[in-house]
């Protein structure tokens, strides 16, 4: 049996480990070194340039646009999504069961099933200035003045993209929060009613504290999504990344710098910057969770 044990362990672990080391581990490890070089893709011609790439990132106005846009998304997207999802989930799980509650959950989850590319193409149509669903709908109800070139006006482009992110994520978090609210013992709500608490007070004092953990999970997930944004922007926006850099995101800068301009060392430096942003986010989230536990 002992020989069989080792043979089984080797057979179980080695293929996956080889795949992991070659295609996942080594690219990540190489990235940190490449970000310190001026590599342009020619084998053997990567000169070590120290932190040069990172210094240049600080002067790269398009990259700084991307950082600013990702930062805006990092603030707006989680708050808007979680606020809306919490509102809908608490409406769905009120004191009395809502007729059609399960049908709503089915429909809300639809966007979660669709790939971001489909969502991007679809919303590209919705936002189309002449024939899109949004403008023609506004015109149909006499609000012609509100019709806009949603993706072409610099002040509207990023909010329009963010609206799509929120649209596509809310359903998932309604389902997640509904499960958390459903797990709260009914007696707690009944006690709140007996104490004369209104809807809002019940939500603040009973529901919210008891779903806090799910909300934290949601913040982390949406934060990670907000640091990305690549697919929507690449497929939907003018340029892409436009107009005038107003929808540029770090992932798009990286992709273009590497695979259009061939500046692979410089592009990888953007990847390293993105990694540290994600790491900071994760550390903050862990801290926050620990504070909650000890508080």
């Amino acid at each position: 049996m002992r020989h069989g044990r080792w043979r089984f362990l080797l057979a179980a672990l080695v293929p996956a480990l080889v795949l992991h080391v070659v295609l996942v581990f080594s690219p990540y490890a190489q990235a940190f070194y490449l970000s310190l070089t001026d590599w342009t893709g020619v084998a053997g011609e990567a000169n070590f340039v120290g932190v040069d790439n990172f210094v240049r990132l600080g002067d790269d106005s398009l990259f700084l646009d991307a950082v600013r846009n990702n930062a805006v998304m990092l603030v707006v997207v989680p708050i808007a999504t979680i606020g809306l999802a919490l509102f809908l989930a608490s409406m769905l799980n009120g004191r009395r069961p809502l007729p059609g509650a399960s049908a709503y959950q089915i429909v809300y989850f639809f966007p979660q099933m669709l790939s971001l590319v489909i969502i991007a193409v679809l919303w590209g149509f919705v936002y189309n200035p002449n024939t899109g669903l949004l403008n023609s709908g506004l015109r149909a109800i006499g609000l012609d003045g509100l019709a806009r070139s949603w993706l072409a006006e610099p002040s509207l482009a990023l909010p329009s993209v963010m609206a799509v992110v929120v649209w596509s994520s809310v359903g998932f978090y309604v389902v997640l929060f509904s499960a958390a609210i459903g797990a709260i013992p009914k007696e707690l709500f009944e006690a709140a009613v007996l104490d004369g608490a209104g809807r809002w007070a019940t939500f603040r004092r009973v529901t919210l504290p008891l779903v806090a953990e799910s909300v934290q999970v949601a913040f982390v997930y949406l934060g990670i999504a907000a640091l990305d944004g690549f697919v929507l922007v690449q497929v939907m926006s003018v340029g892409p990344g436009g107009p005038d850099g107003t929808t540029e995101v770090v992932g798009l800068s990286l992709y273009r710098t590497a695979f259009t301009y061939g500046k692979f060392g410089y592009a990888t430096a953007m990847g390293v910057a993105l990694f540290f942003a994600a790491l900071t986010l994760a550390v903050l989230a862990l801290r926050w969770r620990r504070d909650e536990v000890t508080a």
Partner: protein
Amino acid sequence: MKSPRNPLPQLAMLAWAVVTALPLLWAVVSSLKTDQEILNEPWAPPSSLHFENWSRAWTAASIGRYFFNSLIVVGGALVLTMLLGSLVAYALARYQFRGNRAIYYTFVAAMFFPVFLALVPLFFVVRQLGLLGTYHGLILVYAAYAVPFTVFFLHAFFRTLPEEVAEAAVLDGCSHSAVFFRVMLPLARPGLVAVGIFNFLGLWNQYLLPLVLNPDPDRYVLAQGLAALSVSQGYRSDWSGLFAGLTIAMLPVLVAYVAFQRHIRAGMTAGAVR
């Protein structure tokens, strides 16, 4: 006596249902209209049902080809991911040996790195191996990036399974691999289904990896094909064809979802509440 129901919850739910469903419905309806109807009356239903838009999208716009490419790549990657992921998770969860923890963290750590960081070196590794733009290359890369979460999820799952069943099977003379395939895998089915659904959707929706690693238009996966189509059809202004392509890509997933919605929602949210 019941107090009258507050209408706010029902109204709020209905409003968001409309906001969610309307764009999807609009795309499906538009896919059955003529270009003229789409351009002139975006909200009106079609005068007659133009299913020929669908067949045009399927053949002339290559949606059919992209669909099969996706099926091959995602199918292959899913089988490989589940096989490797469950083997690694089981081996690490149920066997004690030196280096066990180190291997576990080597896999799991990958979940915390953004794929963008690996993108440039990965491109060159794949090119060096001669796998650029091939089905098997894409399958291997997809699987490599899906295995870490699969290991993480199933590792926890295999730990909860009772020790006694495996011991009894060993006493009955089962080999290690027979215990795994005949006893433990069937026991782990709920976990396998959940993570399998999660992986399928993740792989089916993959866009960044094929964009970089799969440059040959003949081998485009569905997501790539649709994105390319939305650019080229926009120029040729075959709007109905593009809506039809979109609908073909959307409908199977939504139908499958409605059929298995409970499982799917459980699988998807399981990823978050681990």
